[in-house]
């Protein structure tokens, strides 16, 4: 019932397909650790550098739950310093560049955190951060300022009386 050739060939193909991520993304190959751009003026972070390096994602997760769900705003660090729990103001206030700080390390580790779907580095907010979406912003469609409310008024289909 079982044909040796088929079975062994099948196993080889299966391993080749299943191992695809390893050779495609060159896992295990040496890449130099990226250089991160550190803030010029500010030397102290919210917590110690070691803690931040290991746990910044957990800290941010705890922050977002505290801010969104528990209405808290101030974080008092282990050293007793106060910070506003705000990615835009506090974190990105010092680490002004997403590309030269966050992404360098994330890219190196091949993680894609979904933060940037909604958040952005304030200094980079002016640029459209997702240029692959080719829709013109309203300003270029010739709408004057304040037209939005007009649109809200007239856009909706008139109904019954």
């Amino acid at each position, binding site marked *: 019932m079982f044909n040796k050739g088929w079975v062994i060939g099948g196993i080889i193909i299966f391993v080749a397909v299943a191992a695809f991520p390893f050779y495609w993304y060159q896992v295990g190959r040496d890449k130099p650790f990226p250089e991160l751009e550190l803030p010029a003026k500010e030397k102290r972070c919210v917590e110690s550098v070691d803690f931040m390096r290991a746990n910044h994602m957990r800290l941010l997760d705890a922050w977002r739950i505290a801010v969104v769900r528990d209405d808290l705003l101030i974080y008092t660090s282990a050293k007793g310093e106060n910070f506003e729990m705000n990615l835009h103001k506090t974190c990105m206030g010092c680490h002004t560049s997403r590309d030269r700080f966050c992404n360098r390390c994330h890219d190196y580790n091949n993680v894609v955190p979904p933060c940037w779907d909604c958040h952005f580095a304030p200094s980079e907010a002016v640029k459209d951060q997702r240029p692959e979406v080719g829709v013109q912003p309203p300003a270029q469609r010739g709408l004057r300022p304040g037209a939005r409310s007009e649109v809200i008024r007239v856009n909706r289909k*008139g*109904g*019954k009386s």
Partner: protein
Amino acid sequence: MLEKVFHGGKGYWVWVLALAAGVGIGLMAYLYQLREGMWVTGMSRDVSWGFYISQFTFLVGVAASVLMVVLPLYLHDFKAFARITALSQFLAVGTLLMSLLFIFSDVGMPMRILNVPLNPTPHSMLFYDTVFLPGFMVINLIIGWTAIGAEKREVPLQWWVKGLIYLSMPWAVVMHTVTAFIYAGTPGRGFWMTAIMAPRFLVTAFAAGPALLIILCTAIKTLTHFVVTERAIQKLVTIMLYALIIDAFFLGVEYFTVFYADIPEYTETFQYLFLGIDGDCALVPWTWCMNLALLVAIGLLVIPGARSNRPVLIAACIIALIGLWIDKGYVLVPAAFIPNVFGRIMEYPPSWVELTISLGIYALGTLIITALYKVVISVKEETQDL
């Protein structure tokens, strides 16, 4: 037993490949929707639920109808159903898989779907659906599979399988009731907010399931050597007929309450459905078709001569199924949003993307059902004494 799936004639493989092609097309459409966002569907901020959620509702009903086969067999010892229980249980497996996929296609953030089990929310009716649907699917798969295995080895059912069977009976009712509660518990949607919703969900389910089973049994009989007795078919017809009549009664009750009391919040949607409002009447033909189909199916099935004539019976089943599908699978969900909360009319036509994805999901479900039926039929063909 699984190896039976891979032994089939030419017709079988053509059918399987056609379904697989359907799945592929649906998958492509889904990837398109995933890339573009939900704007490629026909839904809007006013009609925020559409074709997907409708299909989910209809298919959960078909799955719940397994009760109408299991109950006579195990509580009333109606032996003729022993041959079709596995068919009906595997039908439930396939339809539940489809309904879960329909929910999955409907959410805007599918990658976050695990947030539902990670944040169990007992006050949300959708939560109960996410518990009861997969549960029922697994239960039926286990029961069906072990029952077929036992039949093949000609041993009696294990005691725990019997326990599962008894568990599956109330489970079916609860599962479809919480589906109805999704709708019946929304303030401000007059069309949904009626206590008859859950009972009507159950009776439409108990009509749709047997109708589909009769059609399937007939198809299987013409394609294979597996025979379902006339006695079993006629019992299904009786169940379906009563369910249809009760459904018609429930509908009548609903119409009376709504139109006689004539509270605008409740009548407006019905007015839109039956006559259209200000020329907006996309659902009017569907509504009339549905009511008509219900009456025609009942009319055909009450005649004894008609229901024992197989072609007429099949026609009646198809008509009933179309009516029931329009009811739950097309009109019920979008209609509640028309007119919207501001009293405006925003109509909803499903877009081609929605239809293609739905086609893919139906193809996948049919594929699963085909495979499972293949096993059932092969085993039954072996064991039945011809």
